[in-house]
């Protein structure tokens, strides 16, 4: 995808941030880590901000790009190993933010219909307790600044 297109996608994502579907949950710096086209899964990162006065609980995540999407956390075992664990829900206290970042909590997109290429943007929806959805575009990035 041409660079200009990628920039447009980024701008679109920023605009999407400015007009959130639901005032309680907003997104900062969403991105998906680009992986080789043969990959079966990919990871996504974002900072989730709860600007409301009530806690927000995420009960699930979905995207048309993947057959199965989960919230994962990283757990350290005593011997220097790490493992991923399924987070069944994630609560964001009122006025606080939770970061999904490399090596920690992350979105896991599995059973990808097609691996999106760097520059593409994938719409991901967070299902909230109470029945609402909050969605935003995640640009696919080959290597992020926040990632070193």
């Amino acid at each position, binding site marked *: 995808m041409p660079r200009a297109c990628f920039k447009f996608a980024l701008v679109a994502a920023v605009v999407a941030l400015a007009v959130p579907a639901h005032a309680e949950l907003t997104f900062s710096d969403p991105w998906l880590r680009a992986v080789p086209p043969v990959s079966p899964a990919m990871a996504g990162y974002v900072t989730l901000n709860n600007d409301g006065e009530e806690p927000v609980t995420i009960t699930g995540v979905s995207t048309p790009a993947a057959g199965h999407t989960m919230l994962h956390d990283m757990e350290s075992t005593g011997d220097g190993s*790490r*493992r991923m664990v399924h987070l069944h829900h994630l609560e964001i206290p009122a006025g606080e933010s939770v970061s999904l970042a490399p*090596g920690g909590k992350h979105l896991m997109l599995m059973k990808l219909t097609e691996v999106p290429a760097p520059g593409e943007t994938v719409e991901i929806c967070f299902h909230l307790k109470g029945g609402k959805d909050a969605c935003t575009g995640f640009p696919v990035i080959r290597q992020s600044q926040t990632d070193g």
Partner: protein
Amino acid sequence: MRKLPYLLPYLLPLLLAFLLAGCGKQESDLPVNTRLGGEFTLTDQNGEPFSQAALNGKVTILFFGYTHCPDICPAVLARVAQVYRQLQEAGEADQVQPVFITFDPERDTAAYLKEYLPWFKANIIGLTGSLEEIRQVAKQYGVVFIKDQQEQDYLFTHSDYIYLLDDQGRVRKLYPADFTIDEVVNDAKSLL
């Protein structure tokens, strides 16, 4: 655990001294780690036997992982690729070899690695083998991995160090998965 606060004033200067010692030495008196490493033979992405001896004469960046892990492993691969590209720009990439060893031979077959690795554009050699062979190599490098059945999929619990080997295959330094690219580049250069 209770005793830690009392020990802290004594441990802290020690720790600092350690860190400072680490900072000063960029030239390469990287110590040889005699506890880890050694000979091995696995299968490369072309399905050919690949022995550790083939790496002699090159500085090797060795790391373990599995391609079905989307978080840490592609991040490490991408960062190793960045190290490689920096060395390439310095004209020294031909003396450096990145090597990826999977601990998921069931899914990371030679054919799959051959499709997966070129995307990173870092001339990475991918090694697979039988589970026993890989277990043996992992043991030599002190790598822990446990297959972890989760719902319909399986994952691995694993340690994720990156190893810098000198041109004789000796382990000279270990890095965490979130290593600094410049640090590895400088260390690799110091061994050339």
